[in-house]
């Protein structure tokens, strides 16, 4: 990857900014998105722009590698690096799918309140979530619900909802200077975060900062 870092490329979705992004910076961004997704209890806004860009880059690099000699040492190093990047991307997307499967009803109901610009799921993820829910409902109905008496046959959305625990504690490192985070549970205790400082704090207090990128989970 490092060797190919000088390959300049423009991220597709950033047309309006016309910003030149190197593959290296995209990789760093996706690694941060991956760690955030891994440690946050709830699902975060999708970064399909990064994923698409990186997948494109992978295909590109695979093409380049075909031109290299089989005995070339660089080939091994490139392939190792590619495997690592692929692991990061698959693990990132898998983490999202796991959350979608676990909190299906909750995520879908939250998603319904968001407009199409600010939705957290990609189109494909949203479809996956919907299908997952219908499949579960179908399974419950055919095996058990239809054999139950009277009003117990309903698929009770409220009682079956699993919600992520936002009160859980997370490790984080601040990217920017942030003033006045109110600590939940205290009366009006506030803390300020210095850039680069590390903290353990309840997720609900910093959820918005994680989404905006002001802090990153570690």
């Amino acid at each position, binding site marked *: 990857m490092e060797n190919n870092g000088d390959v300049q490329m423009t991220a597709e979705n950033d047309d309006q900014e016309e910003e030149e992004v190197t593959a290296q910076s995209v990789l760093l961004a996706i690694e941060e998105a991956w760690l955030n997704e891994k440690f946050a209890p709830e699902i975060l806004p999708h970064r399909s722009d990064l*994923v698409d860009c990186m*997948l494109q880059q992978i295909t590109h690099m695979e093409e380049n590698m075909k031109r290299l000699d089989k005995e070339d040492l660089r080939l091994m190093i490139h392939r190792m690096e590619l495997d690592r990047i*692929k*692991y990061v991307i698959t693990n990132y*997307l898998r983490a999202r799918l796991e959350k979608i499967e676990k909190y299906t009803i909750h995520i879908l109901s939250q998603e319904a309140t968001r407009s199409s610009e600010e939705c957290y799921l990609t189109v494909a993820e949203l479809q996956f979530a919907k299908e997952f829910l219908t499949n579960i409902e179908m399974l*419950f109905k055919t095996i*058990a619900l239809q054999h139950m008496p009277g009003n117990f046959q309903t698929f009770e959305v409220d009682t079956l909802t699993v919600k992520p625990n936002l009160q859980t504690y997370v490790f984080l490192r601040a990217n920017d200077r942030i003033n006045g985070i109110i600590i939940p549970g205290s009366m009006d205790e506030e803390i300020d975060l210095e850039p680069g400082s590390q903290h353990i704090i309840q997720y609900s207090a910093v959820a918005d900062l994680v989404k905006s990128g002001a802090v990153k989970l570690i």
Partner: protein
Amino acid sequence: MYGRKGFKLISELDLYSDILPFNVGCMIEALIKEVLQEMQSLYDANVANSNAIRNDNNMALLPSVQLRHIALKRNKRCILAYIYNRMRKLKELRWELGSILPPEINTNLINAEVQWFQSYNKSLAKYMRSLGEDHGFNLTTNMVPPKTLYVEVKCVEDFGKLELDDGQVILLKKNTYHLLPRSVCEPLIRQGILEHKKYVSMEFPSYEQETQTIQLRSIKSDD
């Protein structure tokens, strides 16, 4: 006692980590049927009692109606939890073994579960195809962080020919050792065809013994 059978269902989940048979005539099937029967009888009793409450204003029956209602809810919850957890295990198998279930698991499933598995496969495949530009992106590979490019594996089952990414074809025969790219081996290791050769230091203790005997000898020679 109400709800005891429902609870038994849940403890079955705890007792066995495998997917138990769910066919007609099996223990689980019978158990679920009994729970459903219990629900039906509770429900009937409740309907009768609540009619009595409404018509004769017999408030003495109210507590028993409530108790039955709670038992009913609990039974429903137990059954759904049982089904849900079986489904979760099935889902794990999808990620572990791929889209085709081995026959020993397939025979333990009922129709509805097989159907669920197929629809899950379909949505997952659709999602994975949507990633990337042309042919999608397989999320079921790269399950563990890559450490080395090649891994030493032992073949434990006759598999036949395997084509590598670079077009090279190798023959996987039982009890042969290979050094293969990790990405190719990963699904095969999970399916149990290849075995990751672990560097368990079998030689290490014997080596130690040897050095000990050498030391002993040297001490003796000193004498």
